[in-house]
C-alpha cells in the first residue's frame, strides 16, 4: 500500500515537474510574452506517465530509487 501511495504521488510530481519547467524556467524573452493561464488539472495522467509509473513500480520492487519521466 505504501508503494501505491508513492506511485500516485510520483505521477503528480512528474506532471508538476513538467509544468514547473515549461512555465517557469528556460530562456526568458523580455517584453514579448503573450500567454494566458488556464486551470491546470493536476490529476491528469498521460499515456507516457502511465508507462513511467510501471517503470517506477519495477524500480521500487528492485530496490532502486524512483526515476520518473
Amino acid at each position: 500500500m505504501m508503494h501505491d501511495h508513492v506511485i500516485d504521488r510520483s505521477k503528480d510530481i512528474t506532471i508538476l515537474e513538467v509544468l514547473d519547467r515549461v512555465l517557469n524556467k528556460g530562456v526568458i524573452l523580455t517584453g514579448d510574452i503573450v500567454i494566458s493561464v488556464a486551470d491546470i488539472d493536476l490529476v491528469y495522467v498521460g499515456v507516457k506517465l502511465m508507462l513511467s509509473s510501471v517503470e517506477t513500480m519495477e524500480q521500487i520492487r528492485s530496490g532502486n530509487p524512483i526515476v520518473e519521466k
Partner: protein
Amino acid sequence: MIYSILSSGERTEKLNSLLVGMKGIAGADINIVFFENISAIVCDINRIKLVADQSNAIAYAGVIETLAHHFTLLPVRFGSVMESDAAIIHMLKKNYNDIQQNLLKVENKYEFGLKIFCEPEKLKAELTAKSDANAKTSTSPATEINNSVYRDWVNKKLKEHRFEELLVTYVDSVISKIKGDLDQLKAINKFKKIVTTSMIIDAVFLLDKERKDLLVETVGELQNQHAGLTFVLTGPWPPYNFVDFTVK
C-alpha cells in the same frame, strides 16, 4: 512562438529531417530560423490558442525533449513570442555570445531533479526526541513565568522555533551528505530547502550524460541510508534550470 534555441552547427539536414512531420502546440508545424551556427525552433501560432494549460505545456515540452535527444539546446520559456522571422534573427544576432556561452555550459549534459520527502509528524517526533535527549532543560523552557496562558503560548512558540532550528540543521546535514556523495559526478547543483512541510529538499543537477547511471546508483545508496525519507529522482530533462539569462 519559440520553443528552443539550439546549436545546429553543420547538422542542418539532420535538424530538417527531425522536424519533418513534427507538430507543436495546436498541431502547428515546427520551423527553423537559422543564424550562423545556431537556430531557433519556432512555430506560427494564433495567439488566441496560446493558453498555458496542461496539454499545451506537455506538447511544448515534448518538442523540446525530442530535439534535446539530438542537439544541445536551450529551452525557451513557454509563451515566448516574436513577431517575425526577421525579429528572431535580430534577437539571435544580438544575443549570440550569451547563447553560445550557455550552449557550451550545457553541452552533453542532462538535468535531473531530486525531491526528498519526509513524513512531517514522524520526522518532528524523531528530531525532537533526539534533541530532548541531548538537553533535558528544553522540555520546560519558561517555567518562571506565572501566567499559565502566557507560559503555554511562550512554550509552544519556543518549541516551534526549536523544531525549525532542528529541521534546518537536519536538512543541511542531508544536503551536505548529498553534495559529498555527488562530488565525484562533478555536477552543478542547486538546492531549495524546506519547500513544503513534507518536501524538505528540492534539488536540480546538471551533469555529463555518461554519468547518469552513476547518479541513479548514488541516489539509490543515499535512499538506503535515509530510510525515513523518500527520494524521487526525475529526468533526464533538457537543461531548463541551467539557462540563466534573459534575451534582450
